[in-house]
């Protein structure tokens, strides 16, 4: 009230007031929507929480017949597949962004970026089909080699079915790559030219300029891109369901089938007849909601903690 009114003079025009309340309503609606979602998830899952308590989160049985439910295998699958995707797409995305922003001629860079952004628009079910027809046979063909040479690690043991955690991680990395690349490129392009020129004038090589000037300056933006990508990976449903094998078991091997929280919701919600089953699924949804919320909070905290963010007004 006070600030806007003071600037505009003593009286606020009707149009201004209308605009202000309109925008206020829109803003409140967003908050209200999130609150309503949280409330609905809480009330829809109360049976599961009262039956299993917090142990729901670390219990690993999921048996709709005997009605014993626990979220751990899904929590594990979601976190590991997303981490795998970030491990693959993170360096690849930032690396390609550095190339596109710093090394490639502007015209080529723009053209590449156009195609990368198209990749982000591919529907996930299409990517899932591509996963089934290309990635799954590919992983099945490569895994015996990995088992033979890297089999001393627990991640590379077991039977190569083709579908499983590794394939899910790969498909997720393809899905999140465009986010990391195109945002990171944009951020790197916004690094002030004089800064880079100063570094070059001091005799820094191209690599040193990127490492000591561009990357530190763009760090908060790149972190933001990575967390946006992580958010997408955590919630991705269709493509993952199609290639992960959907088995609620925890296994160190990346070749074994696994399950994610989003996938179990897509699979079982339609046919859940008993109340407890339905409430357990809602509890999974609530857990996923809290996880993404936590990740976002962490991202905020990390981005605010970077020096560039503090420097900016």
């Amino acid at each position, binding site marked *: 009230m006070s600030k806007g009114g003071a600037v505009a003079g003593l009286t606020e025009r009707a149009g201004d007031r209308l605009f202000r309340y309109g925008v206020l309503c829109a803003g409140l609606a967003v908050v209200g929507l999130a609150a309503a979602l949280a409330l609905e998830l809480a009330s829809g899952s109360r049976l599961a929480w009262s039956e299993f308590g917090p142990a729901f989160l670390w219990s690993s*049985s*999921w*048996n*709709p*017949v*005997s009605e014993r439910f626990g979220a751990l295998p899904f929590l594990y699958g979601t976190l590991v597949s997303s981490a795998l995707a970030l491990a693959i797409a993170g360096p690849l995305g930032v690396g390609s962004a550095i190339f596109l922003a710093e090394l490639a001629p502007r015209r080529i860079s723009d053209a590449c970026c156009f195609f990368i952004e198209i990749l982000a628009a591919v529907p996930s079910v299409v990517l899932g089909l591509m996963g*089934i027809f290309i990635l*799954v*046979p590919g992983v*099945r063909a490569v895994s015996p080699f990995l088992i033979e040479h890297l089999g001393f690690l627990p991640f590379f043991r077991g*039977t190569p*079915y*083709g*579908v499983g955690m590794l394939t899910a991680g790969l498909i997720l990395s393809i899905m999140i790559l465009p986010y990391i690349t195109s945002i990171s490129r944009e951020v790197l392009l916004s690094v002030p030219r004089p800064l880079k020129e100063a570094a070059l004038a001091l005799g820094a090589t191209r690599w040193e300029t990127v490492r000591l000037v561009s990357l530190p300056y763009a760090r908060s933006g790149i972190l933001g891109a990575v967390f946006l990508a992580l958010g997408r990976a955590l919630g991705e449903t269709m493509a993952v*369901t*199609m290639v992960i*094998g*959907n*088995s*609620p078991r925890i296994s160190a091997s990346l070749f074994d*089938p696994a*399950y994610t929280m989003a*996938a179990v919701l*897509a*699979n*079982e919600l*339609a*046919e*859940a*007849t008993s109340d407890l*089953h339905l409430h357990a699924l809602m509890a999974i949804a609530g857990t996923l909601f809290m996880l993404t919320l936590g990740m976002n909070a962490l991202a905020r905290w990390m981005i605010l903690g970077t020096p560039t963010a503090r420097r900016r007004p």
Partner: protein
Amino acid sequence: MGNKILGLALMCAMTLQAPAAVRAGDVLTLNGAGATFPYPIYSKWFDEFRTVRPDVQINYQSIGSGGGIRQITERTVDFGATDGPMTDKLLFKVDGKLHHIPTVLGAVVPVYNIAGTPDLQLTGGLLADIYLGKVKRWDDPAVRKVNPEAKLPEVPITVIRRSDGSGTTFCFVDYLSKVSPEFEKTVGRGTAVNWPVGLGGKGNEGVAGLVKQTPNALGYVELIYAEQNGLSHAAVQNAEGKFVKGSVAGVTAAAAGSAKNMPKDYRVSITNAPGAESYPISTFTWLLVYEKNSGTKGKVLNEFLRWMLDSGQKLAPGLGYAPLPPAVAASVQKTVTTIR
């Protein structure tokens, strides 16, 4: 205000009049929801029924049996549909008399992908042991014993099953639970179960796709999906000891075999049915209809169901579904007359 009251009165008058003569342009809409497995035949029926009654529009959402049961229990739809009969516990929550009306039958077949596609025979006990993870390889003595002639690979079996809750799974595990006490104890019956082994595919098409792609895989799908995808399916030993391949005729035989012991409410499992020709992994699929319905809806439902049991049944085999055996259809006709 006055206009509203007038409108309301007019509407009341129209509803009272409606059964006698539906005016041209007035379309009565019925909404249903439920099972996905019979969706192709249901949409064909609802389409064809319009030629009989152009003034009736039936909408059907294939949201899954679980959703169908929930919605008809809350009366948010005019009829539901399910692949597995409702349990007593679920029926207890229903307010009013809800009928299970069997419509058609389907079969679940074990499909496999073995190089050279040898003819494969399976007993119920063997199938249960494979899905329990006890029989792990194609060259296991238990597999060899029922397939002395077949050339089987010396590799592990890649077991594939549904990951989503489904009536297909219910029918399959219902059969395995009947033939293997151990399966009943460790896995049990349900639209979604806790599988000890295997990879999960989403939907019939997901399982068919995985089996087609994975060498040495074994999975289970609805008969029609096996045929559409050109997957070879195994013959399964029935209650009389004969090995029968899944087919429309085998399913109708199974239904006829269990028609004698048909309970009054039609909530019956026909897996492992008696009869030499019976295919053992078969199931009815049901519409869920209240005995008393509001307004003219009951009358229209009644008319549709009688049409479905007569002309509708002839459309079933063309789409891969088995029609009801005549004895069952006759008995269902009698039940349908009570719906109003």
